[in-house]
């Protein structure tokens, strides 16, 4: 089953072989974990979103029209889940005072240190607006084309380009603050 195509495995699952679904989970778990972690900012939420997405995909597997493109279909479900979880957290977060200064003045090592640099990127990413972060990740990290991003998100290409542009501007701004601090 390891080398079987997605379509073959989907057909097997639909015939009743539930355990075959594990192959699809193992195949795509890490690939989409990266997106979920960057989008949601922590591993715990990312795992919840991933688990939910895989479960929803299983539940509606019979409606997957093109099983050869199962991975793209699954990714759409995951993108939606991350949006919902992000929105829920955003509403809760507004009840707390966000200490902006703590984000920029926390003791950081010299940016040349790899781990510190990575932390700064992660921190800056989480300060983007959710729709900008989503567009940036899809374009630059998942390396999708704008047409595919549009199919995935339901957002028009020009709006997506605007979001990516603003995300890049904001990231440069945030990360140059770190370097000049």
């Amino acid at each position, binding site marked *: 089953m390891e080398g079987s195509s997605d379509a073959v495995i989907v057909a097997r699952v639909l015939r009743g072989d539930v355990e075959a679904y594990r192959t699809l989970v193992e195949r795509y778990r890490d690939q989409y974990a990266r997106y979920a972690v960057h989008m949601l900012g922590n591993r715990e939420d990312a795992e919840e979103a991933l688990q939910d997405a895989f479960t*929803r995909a299983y*539940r*509606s597997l019979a409606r997957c029209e093109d099983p050869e493109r199962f991975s793209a279909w699954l990714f759409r479900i995951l993108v939606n889940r991350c949006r919902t979880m992000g*929105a829920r957290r*955003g*509403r809760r977060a*507004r009840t707390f005072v966000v200490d902006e200064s703590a984000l920029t003045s926390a003791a950081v090592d010299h940016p040349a240190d790899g781990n510190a640099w990575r932390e700064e990127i992660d921190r800056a990413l989480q300060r983007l*607006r959710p729709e900008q972060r989503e567009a940036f990740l899809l374009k630059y990290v998942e390396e999708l084309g704008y047409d595919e991003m549009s199919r995935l998100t339901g957002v028009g290409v020009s*709006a997506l380009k*605007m979001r990516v542009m*603003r995300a890049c501007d904001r990231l440069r701004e945030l990360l140059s603050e770190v370097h000049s601090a």
Partner: protein
Amino acid sequence: MNRLARAFVALTLVAPAARAQDPSLAAKLDRPTLLAVTAIIDSARAAKLPTKPLRDKALEGAAKGSDGPNIVVAVHHLSIRMGSAKRALRPGAGTDEIKAAAGALDAGVSTHDLARLQSAAGKRPVTMSLAVLTDLIGRQVPIPTATDLVLQLERSGVKDGELSLFQRNVRADIDRGADPAAAATTRARGLVQRGGGAPTSPRSSGRAD
């Protein structure tokens, strides 16, 4: 007591609801979910709450592939929100207003602010105001800001058509990169000024900008 026993006891408790079930729900929900949802709908009917929104919520959950327990929770929460909404709105508020108000509560608007909005509107339906308020919050306008702006628009007597245009303009501004709160405040100012009186900044002393 194991799961099987708990399920039987639960079924027994909701047995009265098993008498009459909506055929469209019966076609989409598994039996335990159907029984639980029907019981919630029956309770809502007894409390004189609209029941179609509850039925629609269950159908929505089924269409989106949600599991039974999640559907039951969603229907239950909606019935609670509709109860709160009904108490906050004017007597005789219709199903559409209650639905829209339940949506606003779900977005984080308080029942106190719902009542303030109703008071500002008087006998006018607040359905459109609530839909616009919910949309603003969904587009990341902070809840206090969005609530204050819609209240001011309501007090200015802005009509539903103008509210709809306001929502479209704010959306377009945000899509072009504007800060949501700034976009909403600016557009609201323009709308109110056309009707007379500028909106004040949210939670301010009431002086005009």
